[in-house]
Protein backbone atom coordinates (compact mmCIF):
# COMPACT_ATOMS: atom_id res chain seq x y z
CA UNK A 1 0.00 0.00 0.00
CA UNK A 2 1.40 3.38 -0.97
CA UNK A 3 1.97 5.58 1.98
CA UNK A 4 0.47 9.02 1.52
CA UNK A 5 0.00 10.91 4.72
CA UNK A 6 -2.44 13.69 5.36
CA UNK A 7 0.53 16.06 5.58
CA UNK A 8 1.75 14.91 2.15
CA UNK A 9 -1.61 15.78 0.64
CA UNK A 10 -1.64 19.12 2.45
CA UNK A 11 1.74 19.91 0.92
CA UNK A 12 0.56 18.91 -2.57
CA UNK A 13 -2.51 21.09 -2.12
CA UNK A 14 -0.28 23.99 -1.16
CA UNK A 15 1.80 23.47 -4.30
CA UNK A 16 -1.36 23.24 -6.41
CA UNK A 17 -2.84 26.35 -4.75
CA UNK A 18 -6.01 24.71 -3.48
CA UNK A 19 -7.24 25.42 0.02
CA UNK A 20 -8.56 21.89 0.67
CA UNK A 21 -10.85 21.35 3.66
CA UNK A 22 -9.95 18.97 6.51
CA UNK A 23 -12.50 16.51 5.19
CA UNK A 24 -10.98 16.59 1.73
CA UNK A 25 -7.47 16.11 3.07
CA UNK A 26 -8.56 13.00 4.95
CA UNK A 27 -10.50 11.60 2.00
CA UNK A 28 -7.81 12.32 -0.55
CA UNK A 29 -4.98 10.75 1.41
CA UNK A 30 -6.96 7.48 1.46
CA UNK A 31 -8.01 7.72 -2.18
CA UNK A 32 -4.57 8.67 -3.46
CA UNK A 33 -3.02 5.65 -1.76
CA UNK A 34 -5.46 3.37 -3.60
CA UNK A 35 -5.02 5.12 -6.94
CA UNK A 36 -1.23 5.19 -6.68
CA UNK A 37 -1.21 1.47 -5.95
CA UNK A 38 -3.21 0.91 -9.10
CA UNK A 39 -1.06 3.11 -11.34
CA UNK A 40 2.35 2.18 -9.90
CA UNK A 41 2.35 -0.95 -12.06
CA UNK A 42 3.68 1.13 -14.96
CA UNK A 43 7.05 0.62 -13.26
CA UNK A 44 6.92 -3.13 -13.96
CA UNK A 45 7.57 -2.65 -17.69
CA UNK A 46 9.30 0.74 -17.85
CA UNK A 47 12.76 -0.62 -18.54
CA UNK A 48 15.94 1.40 -19.04
CA UNK A 49 15.92 0.54 -22.74
CA UNK A 50 12.45 2.00 -23.41
CA UNK A 51 12.47 5.61 -24.60
CA UNK A 52 9.72 7.86 -23.22
CA UNK A 53 6.96 9.31 -25.40
CA UNK A 54 5.68 12.70 -24.33
CA UNK A 55 3.54 13.37 -27.37
CA UNK A 56 1.95 11.35 -30.20
CA UNK A 57 3.47 13.48 -32.95
CA UNK A 58 7.23 13.62 -33.48
CA UNK A 59 7.24 17.42 -33.50
CA UNK A 60 10.21 19.63 -32.88
CA UNK A 61 9.76 23.37 -32.47
CA UNK A 62 7.12 24.77 -34.79
CA UNK A 63 8.00 28.23 -36.05
CA UNK A 64 5.87 30.85 -37.72
CA UNK A 65 6.64 34.14 -39.37
CA UNK A 66 6.86 37.01 -36.88
CA UNK A 67 4.14 39.21 -38.31
CA UNK A 68 1.36 41.33 -36.88
CA UNK A 69 -2.04 39.68 -37.17
CA UNK A 70 -5.49 40.60 -35.90
CA UNK A 71 -5.92 39.83 -32.22
CA UNK A 72 -8.13 40.70 -29.27
CA UNK A 73 -8.63 44.33 -28.39
CA UNK A 74 -7.74 45.32 -24.80
CA UNK A 75 -11.45 45.52 -23.98
CA UNK A 76 -12.04 42.02 -25.33
CA UNK A 77 -9.03 40.63 -23.50
CA UNK A 78 -10.27 42.18 -20.26
CA UNK A 79 -13.91 41.23 -20.80
CA UNK A 80 -13.73 38.26 -18.44
CA UNK A 81 -11.50 39.80 -15.80
CA UNK A 82 -12.76 39.61 -12.21
CA UNK A 83 -11.39 43.14 -11.73
CA UNK A 84 -9.70 45.68 -13.98
CA UNK A 85 -8.33 49.17 -13.89
CA UNK A 86 -6.89 51.41 -16.61
CA UNK A 87 -6.89 48.63 -19.25
CA UNK A 88 -5.09 46.26 -16.95
CA UNK A 89 -5.97 43.16 -14.95
CA UNK A 90 -6.36 44.26 -11.35
CA UNK A 91 -4.92 41.62 -9.04
CA UNK A 92 -4.47 41.29 -5.29
CA UNK A 93 -1.12 42.08 -3.72
CA UNK A 94 1.52 39.63 -4.97
CA UNK A 95 4.61 40.63 -2.97
CA UNK A 96 4.71 40.86 0.81
CA UNK A 97 5.60 44.06 2.70
CA UNK A 98 9.19 43.02 3.26
CA UNK A 99 9.75 42.18 -0.41
Amino acid at each position, binding site marked *: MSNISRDDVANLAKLARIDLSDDELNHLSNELAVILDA*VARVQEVAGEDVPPTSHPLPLKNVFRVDEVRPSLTPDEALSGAPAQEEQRFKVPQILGEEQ
Partner: protein
Amino acid sequence: MIKKSAAEMAAALSAGEVTSVELTQAHLDQIAKVDSDVHAFLHVDNDGAIAQARAVDEKRKSGERVSPLAGVPLALKDVLVQKGIPTTCGSKMLEGWRPPYDSTVVTRLKENGIVILGKTNMDEFAMGSSTENSAYGPTHNPWDLSRIPGGSGGGSSAALAAFEAPLAIGTDTGGSIRQPAAVTGTVGVKPTYGGVSRYGLVAFSSSLDQAGPCARTVLDAAYLHEAIGGYDRMDSTSINEPVPAVVAAAKDGNIKGMKIGVIKELQGDGYQPGVLKLFNQSLEILASLGAEIVEVSCKYFDYALAAYYLIAPSECSSNLARFDAMRYGIRVGEGSAEEVMNATRQVGFGREVKRRIILGTYALSSGYYDAYYGSAQKVRTLISRDFDNAFGKADVLVSPTAPTTAFKIGEKANDPIAMYLNDIATIPTNLAGIGGMSVPSGLAEEDGLPAGFQIMAPAMKDDRMYKVGAALEAALLTKWGKPILDNVPALGAK
Protein backbone atom coordinates in the same frame (compact mmCIF):
# COMPACT_ATOMS: atom_id res chain seq x y z
CA MET B 1 -38.15 15.75 -39.42
CA ILE B 2 -36.06 15.77 -36.23
CA LYS B 3 -35.65 11.98 -36.40
CA LYS B 4 -33.99 12.09 -39.79
CA SER B 5 -30.24 11.96 -40.32
CA ALA B 6 -28.26 15.14 -40.89
CA ALA B 7 -27.64 14.07 -44.50
CA GLU B 8 -31.40 13.69 -45.04
CA MET B 9 -32.04 17.06 -43.44
CA ALA B 10 -29.39 18.61 -45.69
CA ALA B 11 -31.08 17.06 -48.74
CA ALA B 12 -34.47 18.41 -47.66
CA LEU B 13 -32.96 21.86 -47.16
CA SER B 14 -31.30 21.75 -50.54
CA ALA B 15 -34.54 20.61 -52.23
CA GLY B 16 -36.40 23.50 -50.60
CA GLU B 17 -38.72 21.16 -48.68
CA VAL B 18 -37.86 22.84 -45.40
CA THR B 19 -36.01 25.98 -44.33
CA SER B 20 -33.21 26.06 -41.83
CA VAL B 21 -35.32 28.34 -39.62
CA GLU B 22 -38.08 25.71 -39.54
CA LEU B 23 -35.62 22.90 -38.93
CA THR B 24 -33.83 24.84 -36.19
CA GLN B 25 -37.11 25.81 -34.53
CA ALA B 26 -38.22 22.16 -34.55
CA HIS B 27 -35.08 21.24 -32.63
CA LEU B 28 -35.45 24.15 -30.21
CA ASP B 29 -39.03 22.95 -29.59
CA GLN B 30 -37.77 19.43 -28.90
CA ILE B 31 -35.20 20.82 -26.47
CA ALA B 32 -37.92 22.80 -24.71
CA LYS B 33 -40.02 19.64 -24.52
CA VAL B 34 -37.50 17.06 -23.31
CA ASP B 35 -34.46 18.77 -21.86
CA SER B 36 -35.94 19.20 -18.40
CA ASP B 37 -35.78 15.37 -18.28
CA VAL B 38 -32.50 14.83 -20.13
CA HIS B 39 -30.47 17.92 -19.16
CA ALA B 40 -28.21 17.64 -22.19
CA PHE B 41 -27.79 21.42 -22.48
CA LEU B 42 -26.12 23.94 -20.20
CA HIS B 43 -27.05 26.83 -22.47
CA VAL B 44 -29.53 27.06 -25.34
CA ASP B 45 -28.92 29.92 -27.74
CA ASN B 46 -32.48 30.30 -29.09
CA ASP B 47 -32.07 33.70 -30.73
CA GLY B 48 -28.55 33.09 -31.99
CA ALA B 49 -29.52 29.77 -33.55
CA ILE B 50 -32.49 31.25 -35.38
CA ALA B 51 -30.33 34.13 -36.60
CA GLN B 52 -27.71 31.70 -37.94
CA ALA B 53 -30.45 29.65 -39.62
CA ARG B 54 -31.98 32.74 -41.21
CA ALA B 55 -28.61 33.74 -42.62
CA VAL B 56 -28.19 30.32 -44.25
CA ASP B 57 -31.71 30.44 -45.69
CA GLU B 58 -31.01 33.85 -47.22
CA LYS B 59 -27.72 32.65 -48.68
CA ARG B 60 -29.43 29.68 -50.25
CA LYS B 61 -32.30 31.81 -51.55
CA SER B 62 -29.89 34.19 -53.25
CA GLY B 63 -28.37 31.26 -55.10
CA GLU B 64 -25.08 31.33 -53.26
CA ARG B 65 -23.24 28.02 -53.01
CA VAL B 66 -23.54 26.51 -49.55
CA SER B 67 -21.65 23.62 -47.96
CA PRO B 68 -23.19 20.13 -47.58
CA LEU B 69 -24.37 20.59 -43.97
CA ALA B 70 -25.45 24.24 -44.29
CA GLY B 71 -28.55 24.92 -42.22
CA VAL B 72 -28.37 21.71 -40.18
CA PRO B 73 -28.37 22.26 -36.38
CA LEU B 74 -25.68 21.04 -34.00
CA ALA B 75 -25.01 20.81 -30.26
CA LEU B 76 -21.59 21.98 -29.07
CA LYS B 77 -19.76 20.53 -26.08
CA ASP B 78 -19.22 23.25 -23.50
CA VAL B 79 -15.43 22.80 -23.58
CA LEU B 80 -15.10 24.65 -26.90
CA VAL B 81 -15.31 28.41 -26.83
CA GLN B 82 -17.85 30.31 -28.87
CA LYS B 83 -17.62 34.08 -28.89
CA GLY B 84 -20.14 35.72 -26.57
CA ILE B 85 -21.78 32.43 -25.55
CA PRO B 86 -21.36 31.20 -21.95
CA THR B 87 -18.65 28.53 -21.75
CA THR B 88 -18.29 26.76 -18.42
CA CYS B 89 -16.64 23.38 -19.11
CA GLY B 90 -19.14 22.09 -16.55
CA SER B 91 -17.27 23.98 -13.83
CA LYS B 92 -18.18 26.64 -11.30
CA MET B 93 -14.78 28.12 -12.06
CA LEU B 94 -16.03 29.58 -15.34
CA GLU B 95 -19.60 30.37 -14.34
CA GLY B 96 -20.78 33.42 -16.24
CA TRP B 97 -17.73 33.63 -18.50
CA ARG B 98 -18.36 34.65 -22.10
CA PRO B 99 -15.33 33.99 -24.30
CA PRO B 100 -14.08 36.87 -26.47
CA TYR B 101 -13.21 34.63 -29.44
CA ASP B 102 -14.28 31.56 -31.42
CA SER B 103 -12.45 28.23 -31.29
CA THR B 104 -11.34 27.01 -34.72
CA VAL B 105 -13.98 24.26 -34.58
CA VAL B 106 -16.64 26.94 -34.09
CA THR B 107 -15.17 29.10 -36.85
CA ARG B 108 -15.39 26.14 -39.25
CA LEU B 109 -18.91 25.26 -38.17
CA LYS B 110 -19.94 28.84 -38.89
CA GLU B 111 -18.12 28.87 -42.24
CA ASN B 112 -20.07 25.74 -43.16
CA GLY B 113 -23.38 27.31 -42.13
CA ILE B 114 -23.94 24.71 -39.43
CA VAL B 115 -26.37 26.14 -36.86
CA ILE B 116 -25.13 25.98 -33.26
CA LEU B 117 -28.11 25.36 -30.95
CA GLY B 118 -26.24 25.64 -27.67
CA LYS B 119 -23.65 24.19 -25.31
CA THR B 120 -23.87 20.66 -23.94
CA ASN B 121 -23.25 19.33 -20.46
CA MET B 122 -20.06 17.49 -19.56
CA ASP B 123 -17.97 16.22 -16.69
CA GLU B 124 -16.11 19.17 -15.24
CA PHE B 125 -13.17 20.04 -17.53
CA ALA B 126 -13.88 16.74 -19.35
CA MET B 127 -12.76 14.62 -16.40
CA GLY B 128 -15.13 11.72 -16.01
CA SER B 129 -17.00 8.92 -17.72
CA SER B 130 -20.57 9.66 -16.69
CA THR B 131 -21.26 13.45 -16.80
CA GLU B 132 -21.98 13.17 -13.07
CA ASN B 133 -18.99 15.42 -12.39
CA SER B 134 -20.69 18.45 -13.95
CA ALA B 135 -21.08 21.26 -11.43
CA TYR B 136 -24.52 21.85 -12.96
CA GLY B 137 -25.97 18.39 -12.31
CA PRO B 138 -25.88 15.17 -14.33
CA THR B 139 -27.26 14.49 -17.80
CA HIS B 140 -29.72 11.60 -18.04
CA ASN B 141 -29.51 8.86 -20.65
CA PRO B 142 -32.58 9.08 -22.95
CA TRP B 143 -32.73 5.26 -23.02
CA ASP B 144 -33.32 5.20 -19.25
CA LEU B 145 -33.33 8.47 -17.35
CA SER B 146 -31.94 6.82 -14.21
CA ARG B 147 -28.74 5.96 -16.07
CA ILE B 148 -25.64 7.85 -17.15
CA PRO B 149 -25.20 9.00 -20.78
CA GLY B 150 -21.46 8.35 -20.67
CA GLY B 151 -18.82 10.97 -20.21
CA SER B 152 -17.29 13.30 -20.37
CA GLY B 153 -19.39 14.23 -23.42
CA GLY B 154 -22.69 12.91 -22.06
CA GLY B 155 -24.57 16.07 -23.01
CA SER B 156 -23.62 15.71 -26.66
CA SER B 157 -24.48 12.01 -26.86
CA ALA B 158 -27.77 12.45 -24.98
CA ALA B 159 -28.78 15.36 -27.25
CA LEU B 160 -28.40 13.07 -30.27
CA ALA B 161 -30.32 10.17 -28.72
CA ALA B 162 -33.11 12.50 -27.55
CA PHE B 163 -33.42 14.02 -31.05
CA GLU B 164 -32.51 17.45 -29.71
CA ALA B 165 -29.82 17.73 -32.40
CA PRO B 166 -28.76 15.56 -35.35
CA LEU B 167 -25.09 16.46 -34.93
CA ALA B 168 -22.83 17.29 -32.01
CA ILE B 169 -19.22 18.04 -31.25
CA GLY B 170 -17.36 16.14 -28.57
CA THR B 171 -13.81 15.96 -27.29
CA ASP B 172 -12.00 12.75 -26.49
CA THR B 173 -9.05 12.55 -24.09
CA GLY B 174 -9.51 8.93 -23.00
CA GLY B 175 -12.84 7.98 -24.57
CA SER B 176 -15.11 10.98 -23.96
CA ILE B 177 -16.58 10.86 -27.48
CA ARG B 178 -16.65 7.09 -27.98
CA GLN B 179 -17.91 5.78 -24.63
CA PRO B 180 -20.89 8.21 -24.55
CA ALA B 181 -21.68 7.15 -28.14
CA ALA B 182 -21.58 3.49 -27.09
CA VAL B 183 -23.97 3.85 -24.16
CA THR B 184 -26.49 5.99 -26.07
CA GLY B 185 -26.63 4.04 -29.35
CA THR B 186 -25.01 6.83 -31.35
CA VAL B 187 -21.86 7.25 -33.45
CA GLY B 188 -18.77 8.99 -32.11
CA VAL B 189 -15.38 9.53 -33.71
CA LYS B 190 -12.06 10.52 -32.18
CA PRO B 191 -10.02 11.57 -35.21
CA THR B 192 -6.27 11.09 -35.43
CA TYR B 193 -4.53 13.39 -32.93
CA GLY B 194 -3.87 16.63 -34.78
CA GLY B 195 -6.68 15.99 -37.26
CA VAL B 196 -8.96 18.66 -35.79
CA SER B 197 -7.61 21.90 -34.34
CA ARG B 198 -7.48 22.29 -30.56
CA TYR B 199 -7.43 26.09 -30.75
CA GLY B 200 -10.15 27.27 -28.38
CA LEU B 201 -10.62 23.84 -26.82
CA VAL B 202 -10.13 24.36 -23.09
CA ALA B 203 -7.18 22.05 -22.42
CA PHE B 204 -7.37 19.11 -20.04
CA SER B 205 -4.49 16.91 -21.24
CA SER B 206 -2.92 18.53 -24.27
CA SER B 207 -1.12 15.49 -25.67
CA LEU B 208 -4.33 13.45 -25.56
CA ASP B 209 -7.24 15.89 -26.17
CA GLN B 210 -8.92 15.64 -29.56
CA ALA B 211 -12.20 17.15 -30.78
CA GLY B 212 -14.37 15.14 -33.12
CA PRO B 213 -17.82 14.50 -34.58
CA CYS B 214 -20.82 12.89 -32.87
CA ALA B 215 -23.84 11.85 -34.93
CA ARG B 216 -26.57 9.25 -35.40
CA THR B 217 -25.09 7.78 -38.58
CA VAL B 218 -21.57 7.11 -39.83
CA LEU B 219 -22.12 9.23 -42.94
CA ASP B 220 -23.29 12.20 -40.84
CA ALA B 221 -20.17 11.91 -38.69
CA ALA B 222 -18.07 11.87 -41.88
CA TYR B 223 -19.65 15.07 -43.20
CA LEU B 224 -19.05 16.78 -39.87
CA HIS B 225 -15.49 15.43 -39.68
CA GLU B 226 -14.66 16.98 -43.06
CA ALA B 227 -16.29 20.26 -42.03
CA ILE B 228 -14.21 20.71 -38.86
CA GLY B 229 -11.00 18.86 -39.76
CA GLY B 230 -7.74 19.96 -41.29
CA TYR B 231 -4.68 22.06 -40.64
CA ASP B 232 -4.92 25.20 -38.53
CA ARG B 233 -2.02 27.58 -38.05
CA MET B 234 -3.41 28.46 -34.61
CA ASP B 235 -2.66 24.92 -33.37
CA SER B 236 0.98 24.00 -33.82
CA THR B 237 0.13 20.33 -33.23
CA SER B 238 -2.43 20.18 -36.03
CA ILE B 239 -1.33 18.00 -38.94
CA ASN B 240 -0.59 19.84 -42.18
CA GLU B 241 -2.07 17.28 -44.53
CA PRO B 242 -5.43 16.96 -46.29
CA VAL B 243 -8.31 15.56 -44.21
CA PRO B 244 -8.70 11.83 -44.96
CA ALA B 245 -11.55 11.23 -47.45
CA VAL B 246 -13.99 10.06 -44.82
CA VAL B 247 -17.23 10.95 -46.64
CA ALA B 248 -16.21 8.91 -49.66
CA ALA B 249 -15.23 6.04 -47.35
CA ALA B 250 -18.57 6.18 -45.50
CA LYS B 251 -20.46 6.12 -48.83
CA ASP B 252 -18.33 3.26 -50.10
CA GLY B 253 -18.53 0.84 -47.18
CA ASN B 254 -16.90 -1.95 -49.17
CA ILE B 255 -14.76 -4.03 -46.81
CA LYS B 256 -14.12 -7.02 -49.03
CA GLY B 257 -10.60 -8.27 -48.42
CA MET B 258 -9.96 -5.91 -45.51
CA LYS B 259 -8.12 -7.38 -42.56
CA ILE B 260 -9.80 -6.70 -39.24
CA GLY B 261 -7.73 -7.37 -36.13
CA VAL B 262 -9.46 -8.37 -32.89
CA ILE B 263 -7.41 -7.25 -29.91
CA LYS B 264 -7.14 -10.20 -27.55
CA GLU B 265 -6.52 -8.01 -24.50
CA LEU B 266 -9.70 -5.93 -24.95
CA GLN B 267 -12.29 -8.58 -24.13
CA GLY B 268 -12.99 -11.22 -21.52
CA ASP B 269 -12.93 -10.47 -17.79
CA GLY B 270 -14.65 -7.28 -16.81
CA TYR B 271 -16.75 -7.13 -20.00
CA GLN B 272 -20.51 -7.62 -19.74
CA PRO B 273 -21.53 -10.90 -21.49
CA GLY B 274 -24.24 -9.20 -23.56
CA VAL B 275 -21.76 -6.58 -24.77
CA LEU B 276 -19.30 -9.30 -25.82
CA LYS B 277 -22.06 -11.24 -27.57
CA LEU B 278 -22.98 -8.20 -29.66
CA PHE B 279 -19.30 -7.65 -30.41
CA ASN B 280 -18.92 -11.21 -31.70
CA GLN B 281 -22.12 -10.93 -33.75
CA SER B 282 -20.71 -7.79 -35.35
CA LEU B 283 -17.51 -9.66 -36.20
CA GLU B 284 -19.55 -12.39 -37.89
CA ILE B 285 -21.36 -9.76 -39.94
CA LEU B 286 -18.08 -8.16 -41.03
CA ALA B 287 -16.72 -11.58 -41.98
CA SER B 288 -19.86 -12.29 -43.99
CA LEU B 289 -19.25 -9.04 -45.89
CA GLY B 290 -15.87 -10.30 -47.02
CA ALA B 291 -13.51 -9.05 -44.33
CA GLU B 292 -10.84 -11.31 -42.95
CA ILE B 293 -10.88 -11.50 -39.15
CA VAL B 294 -7.52 -12.04 -37.46
CA GLU B 295 -6.57 -12.05 -33.78
CA VAL B 296 -3.83 -9.74 -32.61
CA SER B 297 -2.18 -9.32 -29.25
CA CYS B 298 -1.27 -5.99 -27.66
CA LYS B 299 0.27 -7.16 -24.44
CA TYR B 300 1.09 -3.74 -23.01
CA PHE B 301 -2.53 -2.59 -23.19
CA ASP B 302 -2.92 -4.02 -19.69
CA TYR B 303 -0.79 -1.07 -18.55
CA ALA B 304 -2.61 1.60 -20.59
CA LEU B 305 -5.10 2.58 -17.91
CA ALA B 306 -2.34 3.02 -15.32
CA ALA B 307 -0.24 5.10 -17.71
CA TYR B 308 -3.24 7.22 -18.64
CA TYR B 309 -4.11 7.97 -15.02
CA LEU B 310 -0.61 9.34 -14.54
CA ILE B 311 -0.20 11.23 -17.82
CA ALA B 312 -3.64 12.84 -17.94
CA PRO B 313 -3.60 14.09 -14.31
CA SER B 314 -0.02 15.34 -14.74
CA GLU B 315 -0.92 17.39 -17.79
CA CYS B 316 -4.16 18.50 -16.12
CA SER B 317 -2.36 19.76 -13.01
CA SER B 318 -0.27 21.95 -15.29
CA ASN B 319 -3.04 23.05 -17.68
CA LEU B 320 -5.48 23.96 -14.92
CA ALA B 321 -2.93 26.22 -13.27
CA ARG B 322 -4.32 28.86 -15.63
CA PHE B 323 -7.41 29.14 -13.45
CA ASP B 324 -5.81 31.60 -11.08
CA ALA B 325 -8.68 34.06 -10.44
CA MET B 326 -6.75 36.87 -12.11
CA ARG B 327 -7.76 37.10 -15.78
CA TYR B 328 -11.08 35.31 -16.17
CA GLY B 329 -13.42 33.10 -14.21
CA ILE B 330 -14.58 33.58 -10.67
CA ARG B 331 -12.58 35.25 -7.88
CA VAL B 332 -13.19 34.30 -4.26
CA GLY B 333 -11.84 35.68 -1.00
CA GLU B 334 -9.53 38.52 -0.06
CA GLY B 335 -5.96 39.01 0.93
CA SER B 336 -2.81 38.23 -1.03
CA ALA B 337 -2.84 36.85 -4.56
CA GLU B 338 -1.90 33.45 -3.20
CA GLU B 339 -4.74 33.47 -0.66
CA VAL B 340 -7.21 34.47 -3.36
CA MET B 341 -5.95 31.71 -5.67
CA ASN B 342 -6.18 29.09 -2.91
CA ALA B 343 -9.70 30.13 -1.96
CA THR B 344 -10.92 30.43 -5.55
CA ARG B 345 -9.58 27.07 -6.65
CA GLN B 346 -11.05 25.45 -3.54
CA VAL B 347 -14.52 26.78 -4.36
CA GLY B 348 -14.27 26.66 -8.16
CA PHE B 349 -13.09 23.08 -8.69
CA GLY B 350 -15.15 19.98 -7.97
CA ARG B 351 -14.09 16.76 -6.32
CA GLU B 352 -12.76 14.83 -9.36
CA VAL B 353 -10.83 17.81 -10.70
CA LYS B 354 -9.15 18.35 -7.34
CA ARG B 355 -8.37 14.64 -7.10
CA ARG B 356 -6.64 14.71 -10.48
CA ILE B 357 -4.75 17.94 -9.86
CA ILE B 358 -3.38 16.54 -6.60
CA LEU B 359 -2.53 13.21 -8.23
CA GLY B 360 -0.79 14.99 -11.12
CA THR B 361 1.08 17.28 -8.76
CA TYR B 362 2.33 14.20 -6.93
CA ALA B 363 3.33 12.38 -10.15
CA LEU B 364 5.32 15.40 -11.31
CA SER B 365 6.95 16.26 -8.01
CA SER B 366 10.67 15.83 -7.58
CA GLY B 367 11.59 12.42 -6.26
CA TYR B 368 8.53 10.79 -7.85
CA TYR B 369 8.73 12.11 -11.41
CA ASP B 370 10.81 9.24 -12.86
CA ALA B 371 8.92 6.53 -11.03
CA TYR B 372 5.47 7.76 -12.04
CA TYR B 373 5.27 10.23 -14.93
CA GLY B 374 8.52 9.01 -16.50
CA SER B 375 7.47 5.36 -16.35
CA ALA B 376 4.05 6.22 -17.77
CA GLN B 377 5.73 7.88 -20.75
CA LYS B 378 7.67 4.70 -21.39
CA VAL B 379 4.48 2.66 -21.30
CA ARG B 380 3.15 5.08 -23.88
CA THR B 381 6.01 4.05 -26.18
CA LEU B 382 5.25 0.35 -25.58
CA ILE B 383 1.60 0.87 -26.44
CA SER B 384 2.45 2.66 -29.68
CA ARG B 385 4.73 -0.24 -30.58
CA ASP B 386 1.90 -2.69 -29.85
CA PHE B 387 -0.29 -0.75 -32.27
CA ASP B 388 2.45 -0.64 -34.91
CA ASN B 389 2.87 -4.41 -34.72
CA ALA B 390 -0.88 -5.02 -34.79
CA PHE B 391 -1.35 -2.74 -37.80
CA GLY B 392 1.30 -4.82 -39.53
CA LYS B 393 -1.20 -7.67 -39.43
CA ALA B 394 -4.51 -5.81 -39.88
CA ASP B 395 -5.94 -2.73 -41.64
CA VAL B 396 -8.10 -1.81 -38.65
CA LEU B 397 -8.35 -3.04 -35.08
CA VAL B 398 -11.59 -3.62 -33.22
CA SER B 399 -12.94 -4.13 -29.70
CA PRO B 400 -16.04 -3.39 -27.67
CA THR B 401 -16.05 0.40 -27.05
CA ALA B 402 -16.89 0.16 -23.36
CA PRO B 403 -16.97 -2.90 -21.10
CA THR B 404 -20.58 -2.39 -20.04
CA THR B 405 -23.80 -0.68 -21.00
CA ALA B 406 -24.90 2.49 -19.18
CA PHE B 407 -24.81 2.15 -15.41
CA LYS B 408 -27.06 3.86 -12.90
CA ILE B 409 -26.43 7.44 -11.90
CA GLY B 410 -24.63 7.34 -8.53
CA GLU B 411 -23.58 3.69 -8.87
CA LYS B 412 -19.84 4.36 -9.25
CA ALA B 413 -19.66 7.92 -7.98
CA ASN B 414 -17.66 6.97 -4.88
CA ASP B 415 -15.29 4.50 -6.50
CA PRO B 416 -12.82 6.31 -8.76
CA ILE B 417 -11.05 3.11 -9.86
CA ALA B 418 -14.32 1.46 -10.95
CA MET B 419 -15.20 4.61 -12.84
CA TYR B 420 -11.82 4.75 -14.55
CA LEU B 421 -12.25 1.16 -15.79
CA ASN B 422 -14.97 2.38 -18.18
CA ASP B 423 -12.27 3.74 -20.43
CA ILE B 424 -10.12 0.62 -20.56
CA ALA B 425 -10.77 -0.05 -24.25
CA THR B 426 -10.71 3.55 -25.46
CA ILE B 427 -7.58 4.87 -23.73
CA PRO B 428 -4.90 3.10 -25.81
CA THR B 429 -5.80 5.05 -28.98
CA ASN B 430 -5.40 8.37 -27.15
CA LEU B 431 -1.98 7.36 -25.85
CA ALA B 432 -0.87 6.44 -29.39
CA GLY B 433 -2.61 9.41 -31.05
CA ILE B 434 -4.49 7.29 -33.58
CA GLY B 435 -8.17 7.42 -34.57
CA GLY B 436 -11.06 5.52 -33.00
CA MET B 437 -14.75 5.25 -33.78
CA SER B 438 -17.72 3.81 -31.90
CA VAL B 439 -20.76 2.53 -33.81
CA PRO B 440 -23.80 0.86 -32.22
CA SER B 441 -23.61 -2.94 -32.12
CA GLY B 442 -27.10 -3.53 -30.74
CA LEU B 443 -28.96 -3.84 -27.45
CA ALA B 444 -27.48 -6.07 -24.77
CA GLU B 445 -29.69 -9.01 -23.83
CA GLU B 446 -29.37 -8.47 -20.06
CA ASP B 447 -30.74 -4.94 -19.95
CA GLY B 448 -31.89 -3.90 -23.44
CA LEU B 449 -29.39 -1.04 -23.47
CA PRO B 450 -27.11 -0.09 -26.36
CA ALA B 451 -23.49 -1.19 -26.72
CA GLY B 452 -20.73 0.06 -28.98
CA PHE B 453 -18.32 -1.52 -31.45
CA GLN B 454 -14.97 0.25 -31.59
CA ILE B 455 -12.89 0.54 -34.77
CA MET B 456 -9.32 1.87 -34.64
CA ALA B 457 -7.14 2.89 -37.59
CA PRO B 458 -3.52 4.04 -37.99
CA ALA B 459 -2.76 7.77 -37.82
CA MET B 460 -4.36 9.72 -40.69
CA LYS B 461 -6.06 6.58 -42.02
CA ASP B 462 -9.36 7.66 -40.47
CA ASP B 463 -11.15 6.75 -43.72
CA ARG B 464 -10.65 3.05 -42.93
CA MET B 465 -12.78 3.20 -39.80
CA TYR B 466 -15.56 5.02 -41.66
CA LYS B 467 -15.55 2.27 -44.28
CA VAL B 468 -15.88 -0.48 -41.69
CA GLY B 469 -18.34 1.52 -39.56
CA ALA B 470 -20.59 2.19 -42.55
CA ALA B 471 -20.51 -1.47 -43.59
CA LEU B 472 -21.50 -2.67 -40.11
CA GLU B 473 -24.15 0.03 -39.72
CA ALA B 474 -25.79 -0.85 -43.05
CA ALA B 475 -25.82 -4.58 -42.29
CA LEU B 476 -27.29 -4.04 -38.82
CA LEU B 477 -29.95 -1.68 -40.17
CA THR B 478 -31.04 -4.40 -42.59
CA LYS B 479 -31.06 -6.94 -39.77
CA TRP B 480 -33.08 -4.75 -37.38
CA GLY B 481 -35.35 -3.22 -40.02
CA LYS B 482 -35.13 0.18 -38.29
CA PRO B 483 -32.53 2.46 -36.72
CA ILE B 484 -31.49 1.51 -33.19
CA LEU B 485 -32.66 4.88 -31.84
CA ASP B 486 -36.28 4.08 -32.81
CA ASN B 487 -36.22 2.03 -29.59
CA VAL B 488 -35.62 5.06 -27.34
CA PRO B 489 -38.69 5.56 -25.11
CA ALA B 490 -40.82 8.66 -25.72
CA LEU B 491 -39.63 11.60 -23.66
CA GLY B 492 -41.33 14.66 -22.28
CA ALA B 493 -44.71 12.92 -22.19
CA LYS B 494 -45.77 14.33 -18.87
